[in-house]
């Protein structure tokens, strides 16, 4: 339903519903912590997404029926083929039998792994998140270095009509 609605709010809430179902299925599978994290994160994420859709989309309320798709038939063929391939692989693959037993507290195991043998993963994720924070601020800020420095990008001080910093 996500890509069938004209209304942005309906599309966002149907996406939220599907991702909440993913979180719920994680809880059913015994991953309580990751399921709850998914549910909470997706709720906030979809709220932010709804704001952005209203800001940037041409028909946010869906009052004017219109299609916003291109290459619909080609994409449908690609997706159908991908789905058929994935289902064939899922049904034909010799899945191994269940090994081991689920721990009493999977969250404790995850925390220990991320702080121990999987520390490299945690470090990489931390650096990626930090780079994301810096990149998003740089991309979203209104004044770039060309606005502040003009043609003299190597100048010691920016030729900026609005002084920045704490002591402005």
């Amino acid at each position, binding site marked *: 339903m996500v890509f069938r609605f004209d209304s942005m709010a309906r599309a966002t809430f149907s996406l939220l519903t599907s*991702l909440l179902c993913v979180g719920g299925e994680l809880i059913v599978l015994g991953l309580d912590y*990751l399921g709850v994290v998914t549910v909470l994160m997706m709720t906030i994420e979809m709220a932010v997404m709804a704001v952005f859709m209203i800001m940037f989309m041409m028909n946010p309320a869906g009052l004017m029926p219109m299609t916003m798709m291109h290459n619909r038939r080609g994409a449908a063929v690609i997706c159908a083929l991908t789905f058929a391939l994935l289902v064939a692989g899922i049904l034909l693959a010799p899945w191994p039998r269940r090994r081991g037993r689920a721990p009493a507290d999977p969250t404790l195991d995850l925390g220990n792994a991320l702080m121990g043998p999987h520390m490299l993963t945690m470090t990489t994720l931390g650096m990626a998140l930090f780079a994301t924070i810096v990149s998003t601020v740089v991309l979203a800020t209104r004044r770039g270095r060309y606005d502040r420095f003009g043609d003299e990008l190597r100048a010691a001080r920016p030729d900026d009509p609005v002084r920045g910093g704490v002591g402005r």
Partner: protein
Amino acid sequence: MNLELFLITAAALFCVGLFGALTQQSIVMLMMGLELMLGGVILAAGAAWHHIAPGSVDGQVLIVVAITAMAVEMAIGFAVVTALFRSRELDMTDMAAELKE
């Protein structure tokens, strides 16, 4: 539900997301497709952890990586949309195609 049903559900989510990512003209709707695809990956990883190797934490770590990828994709995507809209007042992928020239 057995492993195959979970994985087929995950594959369906992934393919619906792929359809959205390939067809949508709006950049924000395209990002919704990517979110759905990552949702499918999360579901498949959770099912594989539960049905194949619950004693190992690798499936859970993959879920953490996918959740982080979702957050990063959304943040960077919205920042790029904001920057594109500020510079050229465009919000559609077709209009952004001229950036490659």
